């Protein structure tokens, strides 16, 4: 009798168990399916294409690692990869620095916070299709900054990075930082606003100066934000396309070429789809090599709350 009761009563509990356990997975499922197909599926497809002699449009008969070989012999590809390392490093570093500093300064109960925040953010809003032109003018020695300073009488001033094959890459960094640092600022501002104030109070009492509080307490608490920011910035760096197209188009020569540009040019403009796919796979491999250890160290069972 009691047994029977127990068993009938048990059912809803069991059902609930499964629901509570399954629901989170169910919610995650669509995104995962999409990711599996549209990220990993397509990646596999690209991997396959990189092993074919596809030129104009995809072809499906295999030809081995021929495309990779070509890629490795290609001087432009080497330049592009080197540029990415240089550009990516500088860009991510500078953006984090500028973004964090701006966020911290903006967090000091600033009067015109709203206006300033929008000013730092606006570069994101304006498409590089056009601002690229403005930047080109500004950086162009005979039109922009250099001319301006010369007009003021300082004729010894020289700023011709844009047209110098060795320095043009830095102008890319400048423009990219200009465009993206505002968003990093916003991310950090959001993070700062989520921090429990009593912790900061405690640190103040411990005698820490404000910079120190940020450095030792607040910023470490914002580790997840750093993580997001690094992700976003590497994404921007790796995929920088509009920016380069607009500002230097890879020039002078191909001194500011980047892998994304290289890939697009070969896969679509030049009809060397196999080579383009190979370069894409190399890019992904590079990302993987840098990212996986980082992801691993960040995600390994760490939880604050």
């Amino acid at each position, binding site marked *: 009798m009691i047994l029977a009761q127990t068993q009938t009563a048990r059912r809803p509990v069991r059902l609930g168990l499964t629901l509570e356990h399954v629901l989170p997975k169910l919610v995650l499922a669509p995104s995962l399916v999409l990711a599996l197909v549209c990220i990993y599926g397509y990646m596999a497809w690209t991997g396959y294409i990189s092993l074919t002699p596809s030129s104009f449009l995809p072809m499906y008969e295999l030809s081995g690692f021929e495309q990779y070989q070509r890629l490795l012999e290609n001087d432009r590809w080497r330049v592009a990869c080197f540029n990415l390392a240089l550009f990516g490093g500088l860009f991510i570093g500078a953006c984090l620095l500028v973004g964090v500093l701006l966020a911290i300064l903006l967090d000091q109960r600033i009067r015109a916070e709203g206006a300033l925040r929008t000013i730092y953010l606006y570069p994101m809003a304006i498409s590089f299709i056009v601002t690229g032109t403005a930047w080109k003018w500004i950086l162009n020695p005979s039109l922009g900054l250099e001319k301006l300073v010369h007009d003021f009488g300082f004729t010894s001033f020289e700023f011709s990075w844009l047209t110098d094959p060795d320095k043009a890459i830095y102008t890319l960094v400048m423009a990219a930082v200009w465009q993206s640092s505002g968003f990093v600022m916003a991310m950090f501002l959001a993070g700062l606003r989520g921090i429990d104030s009593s*912790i900061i*109070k*405690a640190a*103040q*009492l411990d005698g*820490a100066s404000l910079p120190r509080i940020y450095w030792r*307490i607040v910023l470490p608490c914002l580790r997840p934000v750093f993580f997001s920011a690094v992700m976003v910035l590497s994404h921007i760096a790796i995929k920088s396309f509009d920016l380069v197209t607009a500002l230097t188009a890879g020039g002078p020569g191909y001194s500011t070429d980047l892998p994304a540009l290289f890939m697009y040019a070969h896969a679509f403009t030049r009809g060397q789809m196999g080579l383009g796919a190979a370069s894409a796979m190399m890019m992904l491999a590079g990302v993987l090599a840098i990212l996986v250890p980082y992801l691993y160290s960040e995600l390994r069972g760490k939880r*604050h709350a």
Partner: protein
Amino acid sequence: MTSLSICNVGKQYQKGATTLENINLEIRSGEFLILVGPSGCGKSTLMNMIAGLESVSSGQILLNQQDITHAAPSQRDIAMVFQSYALYPNMNVYDNIAFGLQIRKWPKDEIDAEVQRVAKLLQIDHLLKRKPAQLSGGQQQRVAMGRALARRPKVYLFDEPLSNLDAKLRVEMRTEVKKLHQRLGTTIVYVTHDQIEAMTLADRIAVMKDGVIQQLGTPQEIYQQPNNLFVASFIGSPAMNFIPVTVQHTAQGRFVELKDQSGTCLQLALPAGLAVKTDQQLVLGLRPEAFSEVQPHKLSQAQVQQGEFLVEMTEPTGPDTLTLLRINGAEVTARVAPQANPQAGAKLPLMLDASQALFFDPVSGERLRALAQPAAA
């Protein structure tokens, strides 16, 4: 070494609602001051203002005669244990404790020694590697305590530092705090809800209510001569019994009557010099320990008498059994030894020691003082 003056300090969180009103406190150098008061009366707010973590709406705070009302917290050299712990979530226990020392650029080995010492003291030395999220409530509280103890500030502020500890640990910690105070002689302001803590640690106790200080005095003063009904009711656990009485008059003098439901009636002579009139309504304050099992040797003392009372309910607490009576219609708690074996519904012979009886004005709540006869109260 360090005196702390709080002059006319007020605080309003929102316009219109006053949280603290005109607080005046002179905390002497090396003094151990305990703040008590009902939840929400503004204790933490006051502590925060002393520490410089909350802005002061009006008034001044002086540290060693220097105005620090608007000084930055880091300039005040004050350590505080927060009611909400406020541990650094990103650091492990060791770093939480060491942080303040690192800031002060102590040598590494000294920091290490100090952290170890404090951790041992607080019995958290096996937890040094853990993050706050991996600690139990009491462990977190001890880390918060350790953070303050590892420094040598001018003033310590403790906001209910022991509330999450078990009784045993609490006694140990209490002793540690006391020793600390004796050794260093640092000025300490301490918030607690624990009766014993307040009584045993404090040099002086400040009782607050609704943002106003009701009484400031030594533990004994506060306990034995509370200014008013509020203080009397607030200090002491179980709380003081308040019995409505009416002043009566006979040839022997003025007295009040205590009537039990069962018919027992005791007469209590009023202390001489108490400015009351016949037929005046008073509130008689008697602590639970004033009612106890009969101890024959005491019966001969003045103000001690006995009677049988009807027991309404009993609450054994271990060392004592709290016994609920009803006198003059008011609930009265008596502290009786378990051996007396009080039983609800039965009558129990009890002894009343009225030597510590207090009288209050029922309207103003003020304690009535015996004129020119300080011993009367």
